[in-house]
């Protein structure tokens, strides 16, 4: 795992992403990478919120869904240009996050988790009940492909480059963010909100901004999802999906830069691996077995690697490149999770 090195990791990933389509013509592989990419966008936002600002959200599937429905409704009902609809898909969840964020973020820990959970359920009911607008439980079919000018993203490979491009830009932005003053302030909130306040940090505003930012990203991913699958119904945006996103964030490693990518990749790839491996090892086994092994592997992973996959590099190379504060905070977190 020594390749997870701050200096080589991202150039490596970028090179990998660019080369992949050249060495494979497998649309299956590309679609897995696209799905991983979309989830990574969401989890990156969630990672800022959870890993840096220390706030939990069980409602991100709602923002994901709001983005997807914005695209679906704008393009199929109002025939708006697809790029504009994608912009709307990011903005609308952001605006809604701003509206609900003020009162919600006054809550802490479990209460915040419950409030976001309630919000997620509410939005999901809205999708199912919004008959004429959202298509009710039957969903919306016939969403057009995303097109910029005369260029249409109508194949897996084009969509792959789109998602990869967005992801690289986003990662660069987030890297800048977490190493900036704002990033340090957010980390301070995570460690102790009271201490951060005494140090002169406007914790309420920062938490709200992190919340809005994560909602924007989830909405963007939702919009891209709608353009990729071209059909949506309420079911991919249920509470279950929210839990899945939190799971990805935690497995990947909270407060680590590569965590979101590793978490999303781990959860999606493990699911696909098991779908293929379980029937070979245990013939006639149903999907239930996949779920059992999926759970087992993740439990084992969290027992032995509670800081998440993103912290593997740190563990194996403890002496190098450790910021004084960072190592300390991960230790605290590890103890906390062990204590739970």
């Amino acid at each position, binding site marked *: 795992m020594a390749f997870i090195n701050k200096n080589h990791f991202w150039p490596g990933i970028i090179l990998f992403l660019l080369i992949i389509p050249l060495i494979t013509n497998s*649309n299956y592989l590309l679609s897995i990478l696209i799905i991983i990419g979309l989830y990574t966008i969401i989890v990156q936002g969630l990672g800022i919120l959870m890993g840096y600002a220390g706030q939990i959200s069980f409602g991100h599937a709602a923002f994901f869904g709001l983005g997807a429905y914005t695209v679906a409704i704008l393009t199929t009902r109002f025939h708006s240009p697809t790029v504009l609809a994608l912009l709307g898909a990011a903005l609308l969840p952001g605006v809604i996050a701003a509206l609900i964020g003020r009162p919600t973020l006054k809550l802490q820990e479990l209460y915040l988790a419950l409030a976001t959970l309630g919000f997620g359920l509410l939005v999901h009911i809205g999708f*199912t009940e919004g008959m004429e607008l959202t298509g009710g439980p*039957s969903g919306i079919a016939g969403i057009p492909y995303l097109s910029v000018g005369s260029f249409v993203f109508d194949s897996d490979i084009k969509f792959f480059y789109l998602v990869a491009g967005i992801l690289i830009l986003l990662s660069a932005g987030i890297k800048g963010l977490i190493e900036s003053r704002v990033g340090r302030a957010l980390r301070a909130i995570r460690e102790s909100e009271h201490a951060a306040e005494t140090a002169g940090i406007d914790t309420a505003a920062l938490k709200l901004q992190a919340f809005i930012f994560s909602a924007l990203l989830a909405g963007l991913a939702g919009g891209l999802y709608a353009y990729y699958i071209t059909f949506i119904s309420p079911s991919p945006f249920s509470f279950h999906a929210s839990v899945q996103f939190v799971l990805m964030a935690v497995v990947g490693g909270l407060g680590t830069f590569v965590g979101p990518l590793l978490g999303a990749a781990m959860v999606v790839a493990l699911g*696909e691996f098991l*779908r293929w491996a379980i029937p070979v*090892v245990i013939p006639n086994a149903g999907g239930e077995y996949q779920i059992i092994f999926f759970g087992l592997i993740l439990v*084992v992973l969290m027992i032995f690697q509670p800081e998440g996959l993103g912290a593997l590099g740190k563990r*194996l190379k403890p002496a190098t490149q450790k910021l004084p504060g960072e190592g300390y905070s991960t230790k605290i977190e590890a103890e906390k999770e062990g204590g739970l």
Partner: protein
Amino acid sequence: MKRSLRKSVMASLLILLLATSVLASGCGSSGDSDGEGVTGEEQYKIGAVLDISGKASSLGTPERDTLQMMVKQLNTQGGINGHQVDLTILDNKSDETEAVLAAKTLIEKDVLAVLGCSSSGPSMAMLNTVQNEKVPMISLAAASSIVEPVSERQWVFKTAQSDKVTVGKITNYLREQNINKVAFLYMNNAYGDGGRKAFSEAAKENNIEVLVEDKFEASDKDMTPQLTRVKASQAEALIIWAIPPSASIATKNFKDLGLTIPLIHSHGVGNQKFIDLAQGAAEGVILPIGKLTVAQQIPDTDPQKEVLQTYINNYTQKYGSPPDSFGGYAWDAFNLVVNAIEKAGPDRAAIRDELEKTQGFTGISGVFNISAQDHNGLDEESMVLVQIKDGKWQLLE
């Protein structure tokens, strides 16, 4: 000390994963193909994506059982034109994104056709993939929108009767009985919503007035409020579009409120579970259903009689319980695609063309007459009306 322990556990876990994958790829080719290599001919690959686990598992499980039984039978009989059939069944966990990924896996494996999914949502999600990759797909789900408009769904077929067919059966009955004021209740999911859309269209065409239209949640425990509205109206019949347990609860509430107008259900209650859960209240309920459930009662002259009996006997012999209509959808889809491959050979486009030309194919769900305008190919003849008497299905003609 602790750290090295963790490291070694992580390492052994990785090795385990690698070992299984090597093992898996080693014996992957010999999958579930009995009698492989008898003829030495190249295998024909067919794929299926079913809702085997998750919320639609009651649909996907009998479909999987039926497919496994049939591929075994086909292969012992020599396969298609001497080619053994390699059938891969994948589970989509009743999830739309997983269905898309599963379909892509199968297409990468060069399957000639994809069967599935079991329910409408995942089937809809797979559409775009099979359309782009030009692979024939046969869905086992109900919603008409899976195959309509055909101009945008050239590669997609389906074997379950569309909502339109079921609704047509009901409106015919209403007209025969001179009923033109009805109430309509439905469960709030894709199934109920599909029924509502099809019924309100058919009602308009047949000048049937819908006085009350209301819904309930699949998890609701009491439908008295909705039924009270029905009671207060001038409705001459009530149509409920739901599946058990909520369909059974509504039926019980209906009897408790002392309503005496005819109660008509959809084919969603076509299983014993509905009667059991309604605890006697199901007496007198009328519903349209595929002929499989009343195979014993349909006249010997019915073209489907023999096919139905054979399927029931084979399935009961293998699994110890009679099949249901969901297994029947899989039976139809499998045979349709096998017949098409027989004529067209291993070529996706030719298979699609052959599927579209299917005429007079006698299946479990009905006699299929597929055309370029109709990718379902079933009409109202494929269903019968039954009434529940003494806890049993009684043919009503």
